[in-house]
């Protein structure tokens, strides 16, 4: 009798774990199926492509995660990264290029350009955080407005023209690697960002304040957390990460335009939600974000290998995001 009860309890636990991670399990099964049907799915080139795609989206997702953990959101992530990509591309065009935006400007150091776009992203994030904290505008509305504003600024700045003719030392960042071609510089940078943010989230006061605000903002305030200052810092840091991400996207793509990184924030939110960052706040780990983003990219690449028509891949991605949110809702209702 006791053995049967234990067996039922074990089956129930396994069932709950599978259900809570249904999307990850499902996508891994799809990937296994695709790798059996198409052996070149697990080739070096494809793995490099997967890691590289995951790297840039992971950086954005980590930025967005801070906002989600504090029960907010950031819909301006993609546009901010896009603006950063355009600024990076403009400042790193090669001398002598016929359509150089600043023909009289010489070669700027790459680190200086990184600093410029990171600060630019930080300014956007600070404005977001200030509007949300001081004026109590819901994050959805504030960042939606910022999304449109940043898009407009990018349109005006670039004249809606694509930017090309990038310097080879900039584009080489996308092709360079350490030890193995799978581990590109972009992937290494993303890993460094992940480790840095993990330290910030778990080992610093800022991280503890962030989770406290996400768990119960009023209680955090009563306990002495400066909620306003912490939220502004969270959005500012997120903006800085979008700036860095934009720089990396520019070097991978070999160019930039106003449509660069469009929709990345939704993929980032989807990746966070799949990985277990709850939109109810207070919950989320860096490792889970990485898994969520990686699995989402794996799905997209698997669908390409399956020969699925592009239009249908958008439908599947949308359905996966809905399932991720529905599972999050299920966890919330089951807890209540």
């Amino acid at each position, binding site marked *: 009798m006791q053995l049967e009860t234990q067996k039922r309890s074990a089956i129930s636990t396994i069932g709950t774990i599978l259900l809570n991670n249904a999307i990850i399990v499902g996508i891994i099964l799809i990937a296994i199926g695709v790798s059996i049907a198409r052996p070149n799915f697990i080739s070096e080139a494809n793995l490099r492509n997967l890691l590289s795609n995951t790297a840039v989206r992971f950086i954005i997702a980590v930025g967005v995660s801070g906002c989600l953990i504090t029960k907010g959101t950031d819909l301006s992530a993609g546009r901010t990264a896009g603006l950063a990509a355009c600024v990076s591309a403009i400042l790193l065009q090669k001398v002598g290029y016929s359509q150089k935006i600043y023909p009289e400007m010489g070669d700027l150091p790459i680190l200086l350009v990184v600093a410029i776009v990171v600060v630019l992203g930080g300014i956007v994030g600070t404005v977001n955080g200030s509007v949300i904290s001081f004026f109590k505008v819901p994050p959805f509305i504030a960042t939606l407005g910022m999304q449109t504003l940043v898009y407009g600024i990018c349109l005006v700045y670039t004249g809606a023209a694509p930017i090309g003719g990038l310097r080879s030392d900039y584009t080489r960042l996308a092709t360079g690697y350490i030890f193995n071609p799978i581990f590109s510089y972009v992937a290494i940078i993303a890993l460094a960002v992940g480790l840095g943010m993990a330290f910030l989230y778990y080992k610093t006061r800022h991280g503890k304040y962030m989770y406290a605000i996400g768990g119960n903002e009023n209680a955090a305030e009563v306990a002495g957390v400066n909620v306003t200052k912490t939220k502004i810092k969270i959005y500012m840091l997120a903006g800085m990460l979008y700036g860095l991400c934009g720089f990396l996207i520019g070097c991978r793509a070999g160019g930039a335009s106003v449509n660069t990184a469009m929709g990345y924030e939704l993929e980032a939110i989807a990746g966070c939600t799949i990985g277990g960052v709850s939109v109810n706040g207070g919950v989320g780990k860096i490792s889970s974000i990485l898994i969520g983003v990686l699995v989402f990219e794996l799905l997209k690449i698997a669908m390409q290998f*399956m*020969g699925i028509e592009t239009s249908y891949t958008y439908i599947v991605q949308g359905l996966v995001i809905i399932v991720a949110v529905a599972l999050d809702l*299920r966890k919330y209702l089951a807890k209540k």
Partner: protein
Amino acid sequence: MKERYEQDEVITRGESSVPSGPANIKERIYEKLRMPLWLLDIILVLLGIGIIVTLVLGMIRGRAG
């Protein structure tokens, strides 16, 4: 004076209770939904079937095109 002191209302909060934090938009929607768990499970299964059907259709269209 003593009666007045005894009559003063003292508002206390239970030791285990904390002021509830502001619900975000998502939480407010979740609260309003009031959906039973079994119904949500059925919706999840239907969504899963929808994903599989879309994948199959997409593969057929992709190979036909």
